[in-house]
Structures are given as C-alpha cells and as structure tokens.
C-alpha cells in the first residue's frame, strides 16, 4: 500500500475503493473515461466542498451580478504538438470555446496559461501562439489575460497550455446533462472519430498515411443556429476524449435514462473506419474536436436537425438514437445486423490491439 500524505484524511473520502487499486496517478486518469470521472468525483469534488453538479458538465453556469455566466477551463497536453490540420494552439482555443458553447453560452473572453519547458525552441511556441490567435479570431473571442511559467528541462514535455473562458448564457436557455429525458432524440452534428485518427496517424509507433485532418472547430455558431430553431435544447456535449461513447454514457448516467442508438445511423468517414479497423479501435471511443451531440425533445427534433444541416458545421448532422426508459444509465446500440451491443464507458485510454 502506497504512502498516504499525512494531511489527507483517508476516512473522509466518500469512496476510497477506486483509489485503492491505484495509489499513484496513471495514464487512465487522464483518458476521459471512468477512471477520470472517479478521480474528479472521489478526490476533487469532496475537497472542493461537494458542489452537487460539479464534474457532470464541462462548464459551470451561475449568476453573477444579474447576468448568467458560463465559465470553463481546459488543459491541453496533446502529443504530438502539431498534427494534420492543426496544433495544440487550435485545440486550446476551440476546446474551451466549445465547453462554453455546450451550455448555450456565447463565448467572449479567454485566458491562457503556458507551462514551458526550459530549452524549448521559441519558434515552436510562436507557432502555437499564432495558431491560438487565428483560432480566437475565427471564433470571435478575445484572449485577454494569461500567464507563463518555465520549468526545468526534463520536466514538462515542451509545452502545456491551459485556457479558461467566460460567456453569457441567453435567457431561456437551460442546457445541462440532467435534462436528458425519455423520448428525447439524440443528434450528432457530423462524422465521428476524425480528430483522434488524425492524432494517431502521427504518433510514434503507430504512424500511417492518411488524408484525415483534425476537425477542430469552434461550435458556438452552430449552437446559435440550433437555438434559433428552439430555445429548449436539453443537452449538448462535445465528445472529446473518450469519444461519443463516453459522452453518451455520462449523460445517460447523470440523467438516469437509457440511450438506444442505431449504429448504421452514426456517420463515420470511410477512412476513419479503415484506420480503426487497422488498429483494432472502435470509432465510438475516438476523440472528436469539432462535433457535438445534442439531446432534444421529439417535437423539436426535425427543426433542430434542419437548422444544423443548413449550417456548414452541421452539414452531415444525423439522428442516431433516442432516450428510453429501459437500461437506465446505459448506452445500447442496435448493430447493422439487428443484434444488440452494449456501448460501455471505457476505463481509460483506448489502445490499439492485435487480437
């Protein structure tokens, strides 16, 4: 059993079990799957005073001086730093912008913090900063404050970026995972698996040639178009780490509903499917950076879908499933053959396999 820091009260944790089996941080804790969720739920949330909703959304929404503000943060440690179609700079801006957009907010101001490793080429940092500026401009947000720290060579893997952002949430908008309801229709804004495959194509040990470029994009204009069709969007989520499967499981679990998918309705580009086939990956668990999944009432589904398809970011939007009152908290898919497959939350990172 590993050392326990003297200042921590082991008995005070709400559930020590998930931590017992891994007394140190492991890669799975950052994978976006079950281990990440448990780390937040059992280590961080209790420490911060147990805010009831904390950890269920990527973004916090609260009243401040009469305005409804959305506030979110995200840290970017992607490797490699530069990949087909983009860089950590694009992700750093679009990632936080999208977290805000998923609560219906109009993102306006961003902060950024850099942790730079001593010895890193300044031109590399410059490129990243340029990419951030370009992404911010395209998204219509301003990076208004920041911070830079330098760590010793050997600590810090060249650059880590954190961004935080704020935006105002329009009146009448209440978008959060708890609102998923039985009967809701599940819509995805476009083809899945693109970003993760773009990254994997340049990862050491796995490299392959492909035309796939990251789909990193700021989604709030698409959300605005959807809100114009109806203010009553129930849930929005951008399925980043852990992919579509993870996001749907989180929503199903938070709302206490079952999600039933039709697999052949889920758009997957042929090349993504083939890359996944080569490595033994499932596209449903592969990260996306410019896609969202929406839960809307059955009555609003057609209007929302039409609004999405009319927008460049939602041209391939598709209805992929519905919420049901069976298998609450679980996601089940009907396969192309009519069989049933449970789509579980991954435990950690999805890894290529040979078997």
């Amino acid at each position, binding site marked *: 059993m590993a050392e326990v820091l003297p200042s921590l009260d082991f008995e005070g944790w709400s559930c020590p079990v*998930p931590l017992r*089996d*891994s007394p*140190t*941080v*492991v*890669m*799975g804790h950052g994978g976006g799957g*079950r281990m990440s969720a448990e780390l937040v739920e059992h280590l961080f949330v209790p420490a911060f005073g147990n805010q009831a909703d904390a950890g269920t959304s990527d973004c916090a929404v609260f009243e401040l001086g009469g305005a409804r503000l959305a506030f979110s943060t995200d840290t970017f440690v992607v490797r490699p730093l530069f990949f087909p179609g983009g860089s950590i700079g694009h992700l750093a801006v679009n990632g936080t912008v999208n977290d805000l957009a998923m609560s219906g907010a109009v993102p306006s101001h961003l902060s950024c913090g850099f942790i730079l490793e001593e010895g890193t080429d300044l031109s590399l940092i410059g490129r990243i900063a340029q990419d951030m500026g370009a992404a911010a401009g395209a998204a219509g947000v301003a990076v208004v404050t920041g911070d830079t720290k330098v760590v010793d060579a050997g600590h810090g893997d060249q650059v880590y970026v954190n961004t935080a952002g704020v935006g105002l949430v329009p009146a009448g908008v209440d978008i959060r995972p708890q609102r998923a309801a039985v009967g809701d229709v599940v819509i995805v804004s476009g083809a899945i698996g693109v970003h993760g495959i773009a990254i994997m194509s340049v990862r*050491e*040990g*796995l490299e392959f040639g492909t035309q796939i470029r990251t789909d990193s994009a700021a989604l709030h204009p698409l959300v605005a178009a959807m809100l114009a069709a109806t203010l009553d969007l129930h849930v929005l989520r951008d399925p980043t780490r852990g992919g579509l499967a993870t996001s749907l499981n989180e929503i199903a679990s938070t709302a206490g509903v079952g999600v*039933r998918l*039709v697999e052949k309705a889920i758009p997957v580009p*042929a090349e993504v499917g*083939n890359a996944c*086939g080569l*490595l*033994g990956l*499932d596209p449903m668990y592969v990260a996306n950076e410019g896609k969202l999944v929406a839960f809307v009432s059955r009555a609003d589904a057609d209007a929302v879908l039409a609004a999405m398809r009319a927008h460049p970011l939602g041209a391939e939007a598709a209805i992929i499933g519905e919420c049901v009152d*069976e*298998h609450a908290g*679980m996601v*089940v898919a*009907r*396969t*192309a*053959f*009519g*069989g*049933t*497959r*449970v789509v*579980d939350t991954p*435990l*950690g990172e999805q*890894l*290529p*396999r*040979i*078997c």
Partner: protein
Amino acid sequence: MKYLDEFNDPALAKRLIDDISATVTRPWAIMEVCGGQTHSIIRNGIDQLIPDEVEMIHGPGCPVCVTPLELIDKALAIAARPDVIFCSFGDMLRVPGSGRDLFRIKSEGGDIRVVYSPLDALKIARENPDREVVFFGIGFETTAPPNAMTVYQAARLGVPNFSMLVSHVRVPPAIEAIMQSPTCRVQAFLAAGHVCSVMGTAEYPPLVERFSVPIVVTGFEPLDILEGIRRTVHQLEDGTAFLDNAYQRAVPSQGNPAARQLLADVFEVTDRGWRGIGVIPDSGWRLSAKYRQFDAEHRFQVGDISTEESSVCRSGEVLQGFIKPHECSAFGTLCTPRNPLGATMVSSEGACAAYYLYRRLGGAPTPDGRQVVSSIG
C-alpha cells in the same frame, strides 16, 4: 472497401442466419477459438441473432488471456528497469500480473511504448543504441512470423540492444487439451482463420479424427463467422465430422510456407503454461538456440519472481468452456472490468468482460447461461 464491405452485408447475413435456423433441431455447443472471432461476435451481436439452440463458447484464443502469469511478471520486472524501453502491443498493457500491470509500471517511471508492429520496436532499438529495447512477443501462430522476422532482422542487421520476451502459443495443442478434459462440453470448433493462413489446415484433420469433432476454418467478418457457424451446424445435424475451410480467400490449405520456414529457424517448440489452464506440452514456441542472444529472458536475469494468481479467479475454467462467467462467485462482485482478477475480465473479448456488459443490461440468465436481452429495436 474491398474484401470488407461485401462480407458485412446485412442482407446476406440474414440468409445465413435463416439457413442456420432452418437446419438446427437441437442444442449444440460450438467453440470459436480465436479472440478476434469472439470480438466480432460480440461487436455485431451475432450470438443473439443465431438460434438459441446454438451456443457459442468463447475459447482461449486470446493471447492476452492465456499468457502465463509468470511471464507477465517477468515483463513487468524488465519494464521497470531504468535502462529499458519496453515495447508492447496495446492489448497487454492492462493485463494484471501478480498485483500490478504495465500501466502501473509506466506511472512509476517505466518507459513503456505501444507499437503496432514488432518492426517498430526494432526501429526504436536502432534509434536508441544506448538503451536496451525489449519487445513483448506474444501471440498465436498468426503473430509468430512477424515476431520471428523481427528477431531475424535484428540478427542480420546487428542490433545488439534489441531483445524479445517470447510467449507464443499454438492452437492445435489447446484444442487437444480441451477435448481431453472429462468435463468438456465442446462439440465443434471454429478454427482461427488467420492462424491457418500461416500454418495451413494440415494440423486439424488428425484432431477431427481423434475426437470426432467438426472443425471449420472461419474468418472474422460477420458473414465469415455466420458461414462458419452455418457449416458447423450442418455437420453436427448430419452427424458428420470433417475439416471444412470456410475462409478460402485467405487460407490456402498449405498456409504460408515462407513463414513456416522462418519459424523453423527462429523458434523451437516448447512446453507452455496457459494462464488458468496449466502447462500444455509442446504448445508454445520460444527462441531457438541460434537466436538465444535476443531472448530477453536470458538477457535479463529476472529470477526471484514469485507469482500469485488470485485464488478466487476461475478464468481457466471459463476459457475452456467448463463454466459460464456468472457461475464464478467473484463475477461482478470482487471481479469487474474495473478491478479484474483475471485476464478474461481484462480483455475486451474475454468471456467474463463480455458477460459483464450484458449482465448490466438486465434480465436473468436462461438455463444455458444466455442473457435475455430486453427487446430493443
């Protein structure tokens, strides 16, 4: 895409399923040997589409599940060394050794890298001449030629800092061990298609003869699996037993002679322990004397390994089809995918992990252990 899409056609799948349904008159237990086949069955929901009388028993065809505990522990010991870059297929990273796995070693500072091909590990060795680079060479006969070629290249090109930790297993001795067990329930086998692409089909007729079991060489796409099951059901219903090749496009009867020639040079047959099953004589391969200097077990004196298998884990019995996962007392309680006791719960196509997912879907198991899945779509 060619050779894939056509074998994923749902309309053709229905015809195969209809034929199976029209043919079957009583219960049969068929074992698919290969983990990749298990994966395809679960992934596509095939086990629910075939008639209830046809029971698929998920066999020990997953190297993740059967790599001996002792070897996992040796891998962990080697990977923990600061001078080593340890390369592995992704499959092995979460397999529990006696209390730890490769992810934990990584968190403790081990340099562990996932690779797609053993040649990637050799490349890493050439790029890092001052480090020892070890590749975890596991797998069945399908993976053996790639691993053998990599060692052969290491010798030919002179890459002294490269070595391989070898744990290869062979299918025919496993089939033999399963059929010899007094509690064996298996009545027919789907042989592993890609294993036969390498080894050919010659090893199977003697097994068919000896045990009077139909063996059908089967592929991996949904139509291939259904066709393998269909042909097997026909044999069982007809009371015949012969070797049939349902994967001809990728399996000539002689297999791949060039690959086997290299295997004969680089590897030699050895007794091998199968996790949960025990030692099966002549069921594995290790590096031959000629290539011993690339054998990581020799290079790194990893003695003093005390292995400790969970006393509750019954994955061996599950692997051989003697019990169903839910018949194990630890299933779903002490042993879950989150905290697996044995490899069948770790592996995504391990029988225990598969059953766990469907168990959560609800419904009591039917007498043969099949889950009643609530009607969906």
